[in-house]
């Protein structure tokens, strides 16, 4: 008998029961792609901020000057869209909103205080993580859609000047928003202890899964096999 996966995806499994339970959360290629995307995003926000506010223009020195920064930023953007698309296609399904997410959202104060016993059991992702996922999807789409028409070196004529002004404004607002989402993502991973190893070693402890993603843990517990032949 083989139960359908609802809260987990292929590759997620219990890898150890002793001395503590250890659960596999992200495959090596996913982790690698995540860090490529992360590096690209950081380079993009540093180069973008340099051209966003005069007080940060000095950051262009990190890229070899203003001309190089201007040239490099859009290419980094295209690379990010490629790496992020691969990541997003792997993660979208378990980031769909479920009923328990609404209860989770209503108890945001418990989330902020880390009192997870007051929160419903959730699958591989909670609503906060889903919010980050969908914000990233939406904002990266917006950034590339507005970024191409303002890439003046190669696309001077794809839109009218008036439209390009709207694109410039939208691009900068979307950039501010994605930086806010990025800060939330990094801080949440840092504050929720035991999270970062999911993206470094690929595994989390059973206790972490029990505390934060109990439905995911229960499903994986029920899928343990002695024999790989099922």
């Amino acid at each position, binding site marked *: 008998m083989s139960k359908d996966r609802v809260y987990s995806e292929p590759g997620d499994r219990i890898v150890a029961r002793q*001395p*503590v339970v250890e659960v596999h959360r992200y495959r090596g290629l996913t982790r690698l792609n995540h860090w490529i995307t992360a590096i690209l995003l950081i380079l993009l926000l540093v180069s973008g901020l340099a051209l966003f506010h005069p007080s940060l223009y000095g950051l262009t020195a990190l890229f070899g000057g203003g001309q190089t920064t201007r*040239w490099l930023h859009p290419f980094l953007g295209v690379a990010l869209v490629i790496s992020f698309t691969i990541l997003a296609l792997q993660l979208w399904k378990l980031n769909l909103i479920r009923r328990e997410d609404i209860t989770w959202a209503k108890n945001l104060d418990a989330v902020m205080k880390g009192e997870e016993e007051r929160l419903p059991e959730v699958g591989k992702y909670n609503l906060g993580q889903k919010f980050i996922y969908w914000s990233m999807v939406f904002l990266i789409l917006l950034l590339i859609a507005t970024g191409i028409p303002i890439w003046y070196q190669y696309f001077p004529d794809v839109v009218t000047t*008036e439209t390009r*002004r709207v694109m410039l404004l939208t691009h900068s607002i979307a950039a501010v928003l994605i930086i806010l989402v990025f800060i939330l993502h990094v*801080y949440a991973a840092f504050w929720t202890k035991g999270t970062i190893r999911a993206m470094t070693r690929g595994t989390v402890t059973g206790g972490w899964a029990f505390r934060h993603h109990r439905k995911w843990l229960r499903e994986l517990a029920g899928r*343990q096999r002695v024999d790989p032949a099922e």
Partner: protein
Amino acid sequence: MSTETASQPVTAVANPPTVPLAAGFDARDLVRISATTQQPTPERQLTPVAKLIDVSKCIGCKACQTACVEWNDTIPEIEENVGVYENPHDLTPDMFTLMRFTEYENEETNNLEWLIRKDGCMHCEDPGCLKACPAPGAIVQYSNGIVDFIHENCIGCGYCISGCPFDIPRLSQRDHTVYKCTLCSDRVAVGQGPACAKACPTQAIVFGTKDDMKAHAEERIADLKSRGYDNAGLYDPAGVGGTHVMYVLHHADKPSLYEGLPDDPVIAGTVEAWKGPTKTIGLAAIALAAVGSIVHNVMTRPNAVSVNDERQAGDIVDAAAPPDSTPPRRDQA
């Protein structure tokens, strides 16, 4: 060699001085510098200058274009003749000024009017290009009103092109910097008027102090009105704080007749929003989020997994494990 500095020219037609003179204005006279929070406050105020283009006196000879090319040492690309008078087809990084020709059928008089306008940088008092520019010192404005691009600081992003209400700057794909009319700042600095004004055979283009040019325009407008051009007037649009290149138009009530000269140019609201509140609120929001994270981290205990969490996880996993299995250990996995 004399160390005397050149005084600002009050006309373009005078012969150049015969003794070498030091530049009459320089970086000390800047009033605006792009992408710079602290704007300079110069010790002296230069007399504002202006170029006045009397459209009604223009014969479309393009001597101004030729003079511009010659003085600035640009070589506009040779193009195909497609049956229109504009040559080249548009402003380019190598053509800072362009005669634009319009055939206008005036329904009131039943006349065909040939409207010729010399297009180029208007040297706005409130320059949209400078506002949009992200590179410190790439666009500057002197206290005499000249707006100039400093090419070694330009990064080639093209933001100025979006910022300009007149669609003037052009990006060079050769050196990836943006070019436009300098109002011959390098000539004006040594006491000479702009090359185009000097070359104009009908004095449709004149140069001097902005006050002189306005007074001269009044005379021209009075003359045009006496000839039946009731709507003749000066184009010195207030929406950009006035300009240091002005037109005398016979149809000043309809500037857009002249090959799309904006009726009421202003820096676009989108550009103002982008370079104003978005910049300040955006940076403040980012700073707030960073500080907020630190405060949250100080105020709350980290969300850490307890021994109890680990034990309960073990119970769930053990209970669901197949009966005949030996528990896998980390070193076996």
